[in-house]
């Protein structure tokens, strides 16, 4: 077990490096030199050159023959090891500070959203699986697909306008207290639950088609007992995968929700950075999101062994 975990941990390194290369290539190599933005509209050519030099943009990209570590990519890797993500062009703040400040507000939205959605989806999926092919199941499936066929943008716009502004049921904007989180979480749940219900239902139906379920039923075990005692437990693996893989989302935050409702989290940070073309911030969120995803995947694999002893680690 320990050896397996170590081996998997080591396998994370090349993937992280690959992610780093992709993001570096997209943001630094092609994204270009932000010196013009920093130098402002009255920029003198001399200052543009100075800024490029100060920020290391005049260095070779990958390899400097005279000094192998004095190129942009190795320097970037060195920075990341020190958890230094550079500074934002639009706010001149350290990106690591911005990320630290944005984490809590993001978690305030995404954690309840994630928990409520998962629990609700599992309950609805169980319901659908229990009454499979009856009208309840069919209408649940159609409803779930309908819910996931509307753009999340529309959910937010409509809810913010009617529920918050017109009917005054919720605050329109702000991050002053728990009541400010209710509507964003609600929208997130409604927009996301459809897809989860559909997925969990198929997982459970697949499990119910297994031989042991039929045997149990033939032996006279009640449908409810089978569902809760056997099916749910065995369906835990795909459910766990689904849950863990969604963890990076907790970190990157609800991009659109935060932006529309003025929650100063990482999602809003990212969207603003995208609007402003703030390369270092986008780079950092992308990179950290990727690393968390890789680690979450690793956690899934390890969690398998815990949830289902049938799986043996190779």
């Amino acid at each position, binding site marked *: 077990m320990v050896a397996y975990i170590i081996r998997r941990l080591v396998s994370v390194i090349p993937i992280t490096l690959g992610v780093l290369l992709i993001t570096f290539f997209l943001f630094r190599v092609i994204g270009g030199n932000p010196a*013009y933005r920093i130098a402002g509209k009255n920029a003198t050519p001399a*200052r543009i050159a*100075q800024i490029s030099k*100060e920020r290391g943009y005049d260095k070779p990209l990958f390899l400097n023959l005279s000094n192998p570590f004095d190129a942009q990519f190795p320097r970037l890797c060195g920075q990341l090891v020190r958890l230094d993500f550079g500074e934002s062009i639009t706010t001149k*703040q350290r990106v690591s500070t911005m990320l630290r400040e944005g984490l809590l507000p993001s978690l305030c939205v995404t954690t309840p959203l994630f928990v409520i959605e998962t629990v609700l989806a599992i309950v609805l999926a169980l319901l659908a699986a229990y009454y499979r092919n009856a009208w309840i199941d069919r209408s649940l499936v159609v409803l779930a697909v309908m819910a996931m066929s509307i753009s999340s943008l529309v959910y937010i716009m409509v809810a913010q306008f009617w529920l918050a502004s017109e009917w005054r049921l919720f605050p*329109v904007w702000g991050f002053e207290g728990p009541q400010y989180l209710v509507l964003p979480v609600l929208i997130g749940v409604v927009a996301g639950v459809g897809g989860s219900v559909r997925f969990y239902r198929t997982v459970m139906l697949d499990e119910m088609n297994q031989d042991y379920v039929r045997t149990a039923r033939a032996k006279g075990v009640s449908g409810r007992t089978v569902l809760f005692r056997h099916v749910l437990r065995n369906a835990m693996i795909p459910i766990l995968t689904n849950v863990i893989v969604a963890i990076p989302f907790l970190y990157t935050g609800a991009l659109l929700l935060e932006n529309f409702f003025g929650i*100063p989290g990482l999602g809003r940070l990212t969207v*603003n950075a995208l609007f402003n073309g703030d390369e270092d911030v986008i780079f950092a969120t992308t990179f950290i999101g990727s690393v968390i995803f890789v680690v979450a995947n690793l956690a899934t694999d390890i969690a398998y062994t815990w949830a289902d002893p049938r799986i043996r680690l190779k």
Partner: protein
Amino acid sequence: MTARRCVLALVVLTTLASAAGGAAETVLYGTGGDFKGFDPVDANDVESADQVGRVYEGLLEYSYLDRPYHVIPRLAAAMPEVAADGLTYTFKLKPGVRFPDDKCFPGGKGREVTADDFVYSWKRVLNPRLQSAGDWLFVNHVLGAEDWVKKWADAKAAVDYSDPIPGFQALDKYTLQIKLHRPYPQLLWVLTMQYTFVLPREAVDFYGAEFRNHPVGTGPFRLKAWRRNYRIEFERNPTFSGQTYPDTGDANDRAAGLLADAGKPLPLVDRIVEYDIREYYTTWQMFLGGQLFSAGINKDYFEKVIDPQLELTDTLKQRGIRLLKAPLLDIYYLGFNMLDPVVGKNKKLRQAFATAVNVPRYVEVITNNRHTPATSPIPPGIAGHVAKPYPYQFNLARAKQLLAEAGYPGGKDDQGRQLRLTMIMPGAGSTDVRQAADFYTEQLRAIGVDLVVQQLAGSEYLRREHEGETQIFWAVWVIDYPDAQNLLQLFYGPNKCPGVNATNYQNPAFDKLYDQIVSMPDSPERTALYEKMADIVVDDCVWALMTYPLSYGLFQPWFQNYKQHAFPYANWKYYKVLPH
């Protein structure tokens, strides 16, 4: 840029009774956006200038009510003595101005501002490590500035501020001298800009990289709380003193009630709170909710707010809401890259392009009359502007004729190939930009030209503009100070890409005039030259002139003392809130 300025004007104001009872504390609730922290050297956008302007101050500032704009002393005791050759400016500082108490000072007690502080602060603007965008204020003007920058840019070591710049001299505690290469009549404007504001060295040394988050300035307000990306709060700076509300103003100002508070000590509000609201409709809701002191007018909301006679609709009027509009000094234009093989060498083609764009129509449908058609590269309100008709006013028939004369009859070249032009606009994904892009494409199609508009993200747009990788570029120039030189530098040959002359316009006759005006003090002769230079540029059609923006704002009845200002960054201290 005007969008940001609208944001500036979107200020929410409420009055809260203080818990202690008795005197009501007045609080100004507003909306702000991203800014670069409180380091004066980084105040290179409207938002940052505004924030820095609250907590820091410089030698000079703009008069609030007087027009045309002029400067008055702020931390200087009086206007400077200028030597007869115009090369030496000597300032006397006001004695007794103190930095506020802060833990960066020994014993936590603030100290008096001295001439050395100014020298230090200005060296920081030039420090290449700090990457300030304000170096152009001093470089090639102040004696020794460029050598100092060059020396420290090449040096590996950290910048040593004791290394002198001959042009910046602290003669004694209260006397400051600036020496120049050649006369620099814009220097007084420059010293009102936030880059030049004074800060204590102790704060920089103490806070290091975090200095930008710990302002220690002499300004009317000080930072109280700040949740980045969401909310910022200022309170009255107890050590700010010595300034009262101005008593100079014309009859209009008096009629508008702008002189009611003349002589009262500043600032007039106790706190300022700003929220970082990005969607206009949120601001609008809050304004209608009565919490807002002001709201700009978004294009889509215009007809709800303003009736066809450009007056406020009755519902808003009944609530006592006022509409204030005044011209800004900015200009919107389409620049042609003069090095482009197609548009650069073909004056008739540029003229055809300019003539094909129906600017009055643009003003009506795209800006909802929040702009006026431009007639000169120098906006009205600045010496050098002449109110005469623009020679390339929209005229479809004439545009077609000019296009034919340019060698593209009906939009086809001599081999029958379709003429295709490319224009870049900043603001990828913005609805407003997309609508404007659609408009231009349609106008050009009417004369048979295929115009492709590329909407670019900010840094990509700037990069292409600066590197001359454009054919036509949509642009706006937000003026730095009310002197036409600030605009005319955009046509000066030596400023070509990657400098500010993004059109790469080269005209020896124009350059000769420019060399003449840069060192001329304000005079009728200089204004005459400005007019002549504007005519040259218009005749060559280097820019297709678009519009001059107006500032349009809605204000609650209980918000007082607001006068539209082209450089409003230090004006927060004048605003007042009535109990309501």
